[in-house]
């Protein structure tokens, strides 16, 4: 029995849902206006205002009526990337305006807020128009931010590469949206729409179902680009290495959160179909399993031979995305919750790692892993904090990273109850988790086993870097040892 299309034809949004987004956009507008008209204000004030604004909105999103974990994570990631820029305003000025002039650097602190507002809208989207517009708000601002250090060739190159590949994935996503509409007659992402259209719509034709599958595949390609899943991962190492480090942090934590929020929105309508034997469910699970395996292998094996720390973290972010994709292989599980939890562990550890890279880069003049040499001797406390964050990325027991990686394995095992053929994914995951230990420990090895050179002074730890490193480390260890404490 077909349902009348008009019953699910209009998406319902309330103004209250978008209050956090409005606050962020308002703050960004105020900052850009101030940047234009109040020249005397130092730019560090902007980064402080933007960072604390994002933190407050994170609390609001988390506690408010429309609580959503991905929105909170996005605000947190944005705040962390802005605070990183706060520590290095001098470097930003030198790379943007050349010299010590602060001319034209204000937007660098305001634009992440706009992108964050886009992510909050994206997490609440229930139809493809909202998905498209809010996704573009995020990506357009990211292009600007990636190419912001226009005197630096790497940054411009990262900006162009990101723009070309990003626009291509947008084109694919939009083409998918057009076909989604053409086959189903609505933009709403809803299980009723999906089930009806897969039966062939009102005319029950196989062509409609086939066209709909193509549309869904194109939409997934767009989402895979955002999260950096194979084969749409090509941009990640180049852009992460070339972009300004605050922007790289933003892309690695906030933008990836947006990708997984989008993936959840797209996959949720298919959850009711997640019964073995239904062809669509089998197809989706197989597709996700292949993409997850390819992502895991490319990310983790590609990282093995990297010497540049930012590029290493780029490959690491591909590898970690592979572990998160495993939650989606378990199609009838609660993948929103688990992927948000994994993203929290990943956000804290990755942000801390980027703070460390920025600190080493500005004071030793190199982003290579070898620049971490001897930190264990010269800065023992900082070296310990960096060790914990890299250990959590690798998944060492007693850190948060271990717990979430374990959940990833559990998700695969519970998926195997329905789809036993997925067992081939288990050795892939084990190989990749082991490879992680090798390449994350390259940094730790450089800190403790390599001798500092004669002219290496101890690093001076900027205020925000010290604070963020300590807080992230404490949370990573507390969450990691929580099962032990709670168990006793």
């Amino acid at each position, binding site marked *: 029995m077909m349902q009348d299309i008009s019953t699910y034809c209009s998406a319902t949004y309330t103004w209250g849902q978008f209050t956090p987004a409005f606050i962020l956009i308002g703050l960004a507008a105020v900052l850009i206006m101030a940047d234009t008209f109040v020249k005397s204000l130092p730019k560090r004030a902007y980064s402080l205002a933007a960072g604390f604004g994002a933190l407050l909105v994170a609390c609001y999103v988390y506690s408010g009526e429309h609580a959503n974990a991905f929105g909170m994570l996005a605000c947190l990631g944005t705040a962390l990337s802005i605070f990183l820029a706060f520590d290095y305003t001098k470097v930003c000025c030198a790379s943007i305006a050349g010299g010590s002039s602060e001319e034209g650097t204000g937007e660098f602190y305001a634009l992440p807020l706009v992108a964050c507002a886009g992510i909050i809208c994206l997490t609440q989207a229930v139809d493809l128009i909202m998905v498209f517009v809010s996704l*573009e708000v995020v990506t357009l601002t990211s292009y600007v931010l990636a190419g912001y250090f226009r005197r630096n060739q790497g940054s411009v190159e990262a*900006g162009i590469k990101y723009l070309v590949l990003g626009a291509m994935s947008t084109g694919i996503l939009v083409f998918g949206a057009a076909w989604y509409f053409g086959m189903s007659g609505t933009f709403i992402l809803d299980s009723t729409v999906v089930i009806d259209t897969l039966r062939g719509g009102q005319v029950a034709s196989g062509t409609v179902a086939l066209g709909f599958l193509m549309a869904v595949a194109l939409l997934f390609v767009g989402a895979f680009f955002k999260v950096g899943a194979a084969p749409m991962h090509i941009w990640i190492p180049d852009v992460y290495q070339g972009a300004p480090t605050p922007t790289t942090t933003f892309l690695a934590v906030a933008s990836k959160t947006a990708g997984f929020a989008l993936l959840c929105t797209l996959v949720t309508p298919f959850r009711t179909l997640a019964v073995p034997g239904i062809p669509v469910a089998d197809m989706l699970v197989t597709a996700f399993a292949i993409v997850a395996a390819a992502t895991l292998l490319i990310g983790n094996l590609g990282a093995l031979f990297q010497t540049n720390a930012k590029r290493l973290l780029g490959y690491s972010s591909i590898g970690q995305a592979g572990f998160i994709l495993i939650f989606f292989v378990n199609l009838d599980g609660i993948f929103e919750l688990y992927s948000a939890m994994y993203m929290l562990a990943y956000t804290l550890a990755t942000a801390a790692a980027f703070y460390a890279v920025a600190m080493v880069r500005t004071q030793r003049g190199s982003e290579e892993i070898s620049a971490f040499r001897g930190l264990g001797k010269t800065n023992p406390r900082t070296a310990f904090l960096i060790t914990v964050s890299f250990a959590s990325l690798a998944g060492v027991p007693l850190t948060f990273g271990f717990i979430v990686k374990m959940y990833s394995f559990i998700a695969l095992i519970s998926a195997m109850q329905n789809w036993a053929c997925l067992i081939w994914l288990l050795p892939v995951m084990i190989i990749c988790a082991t490879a992680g230990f090798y390449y994350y420990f390259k940094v730790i090895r450089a800190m403790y086993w390599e001798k500092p050179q004669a002219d290496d002074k101890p690093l001076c730890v900027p205020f925000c870097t010290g604070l963020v490193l300590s807080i992230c480390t404490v949370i990573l260890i507390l969450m990691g040892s929580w099962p032990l404490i709670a168990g006793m």
Partner: protein
Amino acid sequence: MTIPLAHYLIFSGILFSIGLAGVLIRKNILVVFMCLEMMLSAANISLVAFSRAQGTNGIPVYDAQVLSLFIVAIAAAEVSIGLALIVAMFRATRSVDSTSLNTLKD
């Protein structure tokens, strides 16, 4: 005489394929940009055609046309950012060829 839906879809499919191939094959960044715009236009054509086809009694479903308006607006923003980046790139490398983008690689 009305043109059937299939013709629009085939046309937009061809346009999309040409755009995608151009992005992947061409070396000149400006041409790559035109190809990107072509992909978005292809999506617009399908959207407008579908909006008419899904309509009843000659009234199209306006949802699809709203999305195509959004696409036009966002494509314009994207081009302005892209051209700014191309100008910055030309200043740095004196070239608009994608082969000159070679500082970042494994």
